[in-house]
Structures are given as structure tokens and as C-alpha cells.
């Protein structure tokens, strides 16, 4: 069963009772929340994800709930809880769904050390993985959404999960997070995209999430082999440029982008080295012409 097959009342029952258990690639999460925006966000953006039984194992037990006391009623807030303990500062209740997404990211990066985790979008064509490692503001998610819109399989918008031998990238398809102007940009570029509510005034500005395609979610257990590492850089109005990047430079950028490189010591080094060995590396500058950008990636990914 997938989330879309749950009646609204049943989804609500699970969220306010035993928890909604969903599979997120290699892990499962149990989610509880009384907030309507969380229920509607899950119904739309996780529609294709598998629902697990109430007694199935969940790697992460999370909740997005109002605090006790007057803040339930006056300027209501939302708390993220992991295993019953509050994490992070409370946010306005209107930000409850983004808070869930950020909290799930935190759960994964803090606990999934069976992988080398890199802050990177990951997409796939013909079994080969394209990594787009980049800091916030580099246009990573916009480019990721544009590629997904034109048929690339989404492995992740945010986290590359690399097995410790460096030879396979593990999918975890979840909603693509867009910020500010990129929300309208993708809405125009991908008219059929299922985009959730725009949530204004977060720490990241306005944010909205895009539902991953059903095909990407269905194929969440299909690994991909590393093939390309491309460092994207968005610069308003800039001419598009794809330039070869020295592998040592790419390696050091990946070290900087990895969440848990130091946790793994030499094994982390070897995993990244194997990944770079297997990949062509580029720096990619683009100025907003998404069709042109996608065509560039399609060309070098053609079999």
C-alpha cells in the first residue's frame, strides 16, 4: 500500500495515533503529527511512498507536535521530536511540514553512518549516477528538479548515500526542496509538478516541496553506479559553461560536502576516492536557462 491509497481519515488516524510508517529508501520512519499541514503535505508529497504496518520496524520515530501550554493557541508553534525528545527550537506552526523534512534530514545525517553521506543531489540515467554536490544557494535543487522534470530518476535532492566501498549510490527519493524564486521557476518549467504549499518566512526564505515522480519512488531499491560529479553554480544571467574539473579538486570539494567523512577515517577516504575514480568531474555554471542546462546533461549521459 502507498500513502495515496490511504483515506484521509485513516491517514489522520495514523498520524494522531500509532504513527504513519513510511519507507524512505533504505530506512523507515514513523511519523506522528496533529497538524493539518503535515497531513496534507504527506498526502501530496509522499503519495507514492510505501506505507508500512503499524507494527513494522521503524528506524526513526519522529513527531511534529505543538508544545504544551499557551503556545498551542497564541502564535502556535511546532516542535520536532525524535524518540520523544525535542530537537531544535520551535518554529511557527505554519512551518510544520518543512520542519518535518528538515528533521528527517537530521535523523538521516546523524544516524545513517553505514553510508558515506554527501550533501548532494543525486540523479540517475542508464544506471549511472550524477552527483551535484553544492552548498545552499548554488542552484542544486533547481537543477535537480529540472532534470527530474525531463526524465532523470531522482535518488535524492539532498543526500548522496554512498556505500563504503564507493561503488554504489543508494537512493532515498523524497520531496525536492525549493526556495524563493526557484519555486516559480520550477512551476513554469514543470507545469505538471505536484508542488506543496509555499511556506513563507522560514529561516531559508519561502520554501516549497516537489513530489518525487512515482517511478523514482518505486525504484528506490535500485542502486546506481557513480559516473559524474558536477559542481553546479547558479549565477543570474551567466552564460552556461561546463568545464572539466581536476579530480583532486573534485575530491576535496566532496570531502567538504560530506557530513560524516571524518567518522569513517581511512574508509571514508577510500570510499570517496573510489567514487571519484569512477566519475568524470566537471564544474557547471548556469544562468537560468534550464532547458539548455538539461540538454547539456542529457548529452553527456547518452549511452
Amino acid at each position, binding site marked *: 500500500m502507498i500513502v495515496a491509497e490511504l483515506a484521509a481519515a485513516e491517514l489522520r488516524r495514523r498520524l494522531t495515533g500509532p504513527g504513519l510508517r513510511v519507507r524512505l529508501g533504505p530506512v523507515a520512519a514513523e511519523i506522528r503529527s496533529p497538524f493539518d499541514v503535515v497531513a496534507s503535505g504527506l498526502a501530496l508529497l509522499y503519495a507514492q511512498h510505501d506505507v508500512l504496518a503499524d507494527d513494522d520496524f521503524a528506524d526513526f520515530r519522529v513527531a511534529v507536535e505543538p508544545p504544551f501550554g499557551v503556545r498551542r493557541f497564541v502564535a502556535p508553534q511546532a516542535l520536532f521530536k525524535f524518540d520523544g525528545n525535542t530537537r531544535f527550537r520551535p518554529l511557527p506552526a505554519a512551518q510544520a511540514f518543512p520542519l518535518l523534512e528538515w528533521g528527517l534530514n537530521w535523523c538521516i545525517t546523524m544516524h545513517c553512518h553505514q553510508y558515506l553521506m554527501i550533501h548532494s543531489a543525486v540523479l540517475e540515467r542508464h544506471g549511472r549516477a550524477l552527483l551535484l554536490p553544492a552548498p545552499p544557494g548554488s542552484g542544486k535543487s533547481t537543477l535537480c528538479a529540472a532534470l527530474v522534470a525531463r526524465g532523470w530518476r531522482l535518488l535524492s535532492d539532498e543526500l548522496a548515500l554512498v556505500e563504503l566501498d564507493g561503488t554504489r549510490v543508494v537512493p532515498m527519493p523524497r520531496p525536492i526542496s525549493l526556495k524563493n524564486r526557484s519555486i516559480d521557476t520550477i512551476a513554469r518549467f514543470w507545469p505538471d509538478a505536484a508542488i506543496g504549499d509555499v511556506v513563507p518566512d522560514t529561516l531559508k526564505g519561502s520554501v516549497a516541496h516537489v513530489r518525487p515522480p512515482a517511478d523514482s519512488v518505486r525504484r528506490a531499491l535500485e542502486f546506481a553506479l557513480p559516473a559524474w560529479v558536477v559542481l553546479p553554480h547558479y549565477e543570474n544571467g551567466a552564460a552556461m559553461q561546463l568545464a572539466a574539473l*581536476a*579530480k583532486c*579538486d573534485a*575530491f576535496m570539494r566532496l*570531502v567538504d560536502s560530506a557530513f560524516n567523512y*571524518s567518522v569513517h*577515517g581511512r574508509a571514508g577516504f577510500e570510499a570517496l576516492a573510489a567514487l*571519484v*575514480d569512477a566519475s568524470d568531474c566537471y564544474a557547471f555554471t548556469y544562468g537560468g536557462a534550464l532547458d539548455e542546462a538539461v540538454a547539456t546533461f542529457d548529452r553527456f549521459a547518452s549511452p
Partner: protein
Amino acid sequence: MNPDSSWRLVAPDALASRSWDDELVLYNDVTGDTHHLSVLGHAVMTMLASHPSGIDLAALVGGIADDAGTSADDELAAAVERTLAHLAELRLATPVSA
């Protein structure tokens, strides 16, 4: 820097490395640090690795010059000295005690 001094790697068994395009990245188990070394840094590390008991500066410069097909002039010697000082700061190379 004493021109008569010899140099060796601090802990060769603690190093994991990968080379692409003649540059080098390496991981040091002792410090937990990852380094990116230039072509010259790579050449110095390679030469030191092949002389575990130490190699003096003149021989080091000569060996690097031979491998690169160039002359062991003062400019190269100065660059090698700077590289050795940098590698010492990174705790990768050390002068050999007399």
C-alpha cells in the same frame, strides 16, 4: 634549512593516497587529516616514500629533476625546500635526526 639534513616520511604506513593528473590526495591515519598536494608535493612524497631511512636534500632534488627530465637548479631546490617545510607543518615529513 640545513642542506645536509636528510628527510623521511613521518608515518608511511599511516598514509592512504590517490593520484590523479600527477597531483595527490592523501589521508593520514595519525592526524585524521586529508591533504591535497601539488605536482611537486606529490613528487617529494614519492621520493621520500622510496627512501624510508631518509634522503638528503641534494639527492632529493636530483631525483625529482631526473624524474621530471629537468635540471636540478637553485630554483627547483628552493621549491623543494619550501615543499619540505610545508610537509613538515602537515606532519607528513620530518628531518632525520643525525
